[in-house]
């Protein structure tokens, strides 16, 4: 089952909420989805309480102190789901794995064992259209392409007020990445700037279930469709 690595800082509740909401939308599309994160996240405010499992989407915490252990834990979860035959081959599924950026840094600096780079084979980055966020996404893409050449790096632009703004942000990032890193980015759409996003984040409830007709929910669903399409293609490929 395809695994998508999502670098999320230990206090980045917004990106964590996007990831969780994306998993819920993938489940709403009829596929299986889960979020995997290091066990240390239990003490953080990143994820909803364990009892909150909309559409059966779990946040599964695995004992891991580095990327290699996290990768192993995520693959075991993916293998168990596949073996349990709970999902049809056609429906497919996606495992989203929260990558602590500091573990990426340690790997990049040669301070950790070289294993775990498989987790970077498909990486998803959330960025706004602000220059500082675009620079961060470029920097993480730079690190990922060095550690895992040929990795698929997907970009979802959030906080956009207009489609054109999000497109311009993606193109700007993609141009610089292609020119400087000889790497191609995959666009996974945009998440609309919508108050329902913040309400849902604070309330720890998925946007797609609480405000299904809101622009934020519709855009989240669009992103989920793009990600799931690639996941199914990868599973069949």
């Amino acid at each position, binding site marked *: 089952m395809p695994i998508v690595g999502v*670098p*999320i*800082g*230990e*206090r*980045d*509740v*917004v*990106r964590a909420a996007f990831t969780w909401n994306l998993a819920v939308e993938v489940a709403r599309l009829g596929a299986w989805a889960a979020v995997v994160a290091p066990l240390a996240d239990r003490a*953080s*405010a*990143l994820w909803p309480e364990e009892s909150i499992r909309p559409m059966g989407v779990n946040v599964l915490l695995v004992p891991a102190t580095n990327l290699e252990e996290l990768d192993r834990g995520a693959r075991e979860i993916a293998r168990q789901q596949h073996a349990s035959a709970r999902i049809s081959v056609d429906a497919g599924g996606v495992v989203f794995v929260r990558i602590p*950026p*500091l573990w*990426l*840094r340690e790997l*990049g600096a040669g301070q950790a064992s070289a294993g775990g780079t498989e987790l970077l084979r498909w990486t998803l980055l959330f960025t706004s259209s602000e*220059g*500082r*966020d*675009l*620079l*961060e996404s*470029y*920097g*993480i893409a*730079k*690190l990922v392409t060095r550690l895992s050449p040929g990795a698929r790096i997907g970009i979802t632009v959030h906080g956009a007020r207009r489609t054109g703004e999000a497109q311009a942000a993606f193109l*700007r990032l993609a141009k*610089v990445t292609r020119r*400087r890193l000889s790497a191609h980015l995959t666009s996974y759409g945009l998440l609309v700037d919508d*108050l329902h996003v*913040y*309400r849902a*984040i*604070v*309330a*720890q409830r998925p946007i797609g279930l609480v405000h299904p007709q809101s622009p934020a929910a519709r855009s989240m669903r669009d992103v989920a469709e793009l990600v799931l399409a690639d996941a199914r293609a990868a599973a069949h490929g």
Partner: protein
Amino acid sequence: MADDPAGRLRYVDALPRQELRDALRRAKAFDPPLRILAEDVLGADSRIDFVAVDPSGCVVLVVIGDEGEDSQLLTRALAHRAWVRPRLRDWLQLGPDLEISASAPVVAAILCPSFSPATRAAADDLGPEVVQLSSCRSVRNGAAATVLLERLSPRPAPAPPAAADHTSRFRSGLSEADLGLTSEEAREFE
């Protein structure tokens, strides 16, 4: 509430909203100091306790809540902010003497007795140019009431220099040095 003959300071439960606003004005409790333009203003779908301006010309929307209301207040404050931002230029036309900077951020300042970890994490992630949290405790000194504010969310960081800043950190917690970014690469996204 009866006067305390010993005149001791003591925390009290939430003051009535108007008394609390009056106490905030008297105490000049805000740091940095705010110039209050309006009070009890109808915003997005509820009222804004204060519309104020800070020393840099940023509009600050102050909303006050009771214990346990912090997450609702965050939602409400962000709604007010979204409502105000497109109206700033109109306000400047109506009141050019307001000395508002139309290009500066509109900040939502939330005052509550306490904040949950989730609210604090959300505010930290949004950043001090979007929302600022302060704990707000009412104190009686004899018959008089005053307010103690303690800023909880981080103060704004100084603007980064044009060249690559190897000490400032991104939302991921990584720095430009961690990501091996050069000054030329940083300039691509200015």
